[in-house]
């Protein structure tokens, strides 16, 4: 895939009044790529999409399609079609009129519009619904009409603004795959805004994670999941367990000092730019392995914490434990249930433990301060 040249954003910024919504967005998207813009609400992802669509102009930077500057072009001159979160179907028009409106605006003959609308309907499984008004459609059907309306004008780039968020959970799962299959079949470039991590993982070739108007990380789903570039990305991608440890790099290893819940150990550095001092350690509940406290857990490189089970629940598939490590609580999954009150060892393999230097965290967290005092004493 040609990485640069198709859709490019260079130093794009946007402000709303005095609020800086987007800062310094550099993004290059290849033709036929499916990119998910992922972030929590208010991170600027919808603003970025609306900026691409041409509804708002950036305060700085430029947007290019095939090396052509489209930054200040009107929405319809960019070869992009937007699918709205609310679908934004026109309630006074039938399904066929909704899908065919873009073609009508282009001055295409009635017979051709009818033919293309019919083709779009059968592509999307909307046959026989052409005379219905949007109010008489189910949520999934409305969503497909909105998609058909956008695809009917044959856009080069499809912009999707949380198009699945108004669907039932069950329908959403199938629509994800349908939408992705359709995008592949048509070879269309798609930019999909979502706050749903799993949706982004399942659908996208590349995930762009936005935080406070900046790109926090971009990469393949495996990349952002397994190699988060910052504590924010790690937390956003599900590594919600957080502990503060102390350590220092030693060659290609990172030596972690003993703390209230862990013994001293050493982890491969894996090229991470970690400085000596306090580190923020994050891991996913499913990455942890639980053992009875007296079992010595030494399975490959990793770190072992010792603590006590505070609560246990069954969300399905595995048992989820809340474990008290000193005055911190973490969550860890296991195939069998440990009784509350049981002493356990929590083993986190090195590759699943995300470490980030956190100079400011040292003073904020009491658990990381206590061991540092011990180490230096």
């Amino acid at each position: 895939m040609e990485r640069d040249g198709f859709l490019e954003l260079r130093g794009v910024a946007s402000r709303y009044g005095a609020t800086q919504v987007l800062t310094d967005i550099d993004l290059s998207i290849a033709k036929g790529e499916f990119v998910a813009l992922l972030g929590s609400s208010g991170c600027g992802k919808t603003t970025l999409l609306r900026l691409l669509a041409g509804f708002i102009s950036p305060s700085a930077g430029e947007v290019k399609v095939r090396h052509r500057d489209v930054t200040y072009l009107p929405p319809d001159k960019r070869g992009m079609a937007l699918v709205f979160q609310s679908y934004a179907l026109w309630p006074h028009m039938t399904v066929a009129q909704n899908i065919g409106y873009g073609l009508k605006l282009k001055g295409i003959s009635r017979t051709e519009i009818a033919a293309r609308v019919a083709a779009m309907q059968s592509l999307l499984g909307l046959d026989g619904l052409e005379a219905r008004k949007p109010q008489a459609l189910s949520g999934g059907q409305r969503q497909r009409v909105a998609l058909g309306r956008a695809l009917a004008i044959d856009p080069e780039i499809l912009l999707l603004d949380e198009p699945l968020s108004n669907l039932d959970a069950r329908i959403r799962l199938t629509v994800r795959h349908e939408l992705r299959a359709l995008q592949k079949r048509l070879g269309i470039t798609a930019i999909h805004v979502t706050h749903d991590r799993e949706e982004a993982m399942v659908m996208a070739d590349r995930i762009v994670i936005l935080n406070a108007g900046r790109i926090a990380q971009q990469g393949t789903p495996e990349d952002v999941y397994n190699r988060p570039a910052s504590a924010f990305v790690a937390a956003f991608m599900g590594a919600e367990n957080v502990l503060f440890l102390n350590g220092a790099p030693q060659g290609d290893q990172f030596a972690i000092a003993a703390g209230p819940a862990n013994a001293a150990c050493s982890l491969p550095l894996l090229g991470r730019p970690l400085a000596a001092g306090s580190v923020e350690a994050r891991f996913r509940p499913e990455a942890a392995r639980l053992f009875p406290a007296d079992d010595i857990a030494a399975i490959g490189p990793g770190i072992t914490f010792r603590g006590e089970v505070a609560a246990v629940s069954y969300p399905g598939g595995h048992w989820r434990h809340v474990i008290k490590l000193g005055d911190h609580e973490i969550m860890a999954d296991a195939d069998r249930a440990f009784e509350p009150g049981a002493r356990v060892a929590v083993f986190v393999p090195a590759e699943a433990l995300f470490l980030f230097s956190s100079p400011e965290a040292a003073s904020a967290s009491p658990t990381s301060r206590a061991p540092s005092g011990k180490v230096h004493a």
Partner: protein
Amino acid sequence: MPIIPPNGRTMPKRFLGLLLVLPALAVIAFLFILPLIMSAVGAFQVEGTFGWGNFTKTFDLYTKDIIFTVMIVSLSTVLIGIASIAIGGYLTLGEHPVAVAILRWLYRWPMFIPFIVVGQILRTFLSKNGMMNNTFINLGLLTPLDAVSFLDWRGIVIAFVWKQTPFVALLVAGAMASINRDTIEAARNLGASRLRLLLEIVVPQVAMTLTVGLILSFVTMMSVLSVPLMINAQSPTMLTADIAFRVNSYGDYGVANALGLISLVLAASVAWIYLRASLKERA
């Protein structure tokens, strides 16, 4: 044993409810429905006996005025519709924030001015030597010889449009403001021009509100006496002026009632169009 209805309430409680609405019902019945029925009956009474006499006389004398009234009110309604769509459309789609703010502040004013004052203002403005013609003459656009008075049907239409547009525009602009903005942006995304956005996307979505506003305006204009009296005190004139004339000059309540009933039928026919449209929409 008292009979207890299925909902568990005893009968006296029901009567108490009825008693509570009785004053309101009585007011409506005696001050509104009864006079209306008496007027309607009066239209068919000629010197104590029932007959079509009043209507024959009405159509002999006032057919021209009936047509005049219908034409003026219909034309005004159309113009009010166009003007309020234009105002509402600019408030919704206008991109110049200052112009939108000025229009928003300005357009409502005529709503607070009574019809009689509107008539008076326009009388001095539209007459042969009025402010409008004077301005044109001073600007060199018109010679004093070519100046004509607008104090005829045109004056009435101007007065009605001037007075009623803000009311309809208020309703229409409110409805336009509450439609889903995404539906407008979706059309913009596909390349719809500003005019197409207004006529094909925005107006159809507020059609019902627009219709209600125009029907209320139609009925209001049918009942205005002061404007035709102030601006067009000649023949043909509007039905309201005729009714006042029959009552005040001749004490002829029979013909006045017949004229009133005709006005009522005209107003009701418009309301009927609305009812049909709203039923169709719900179906």
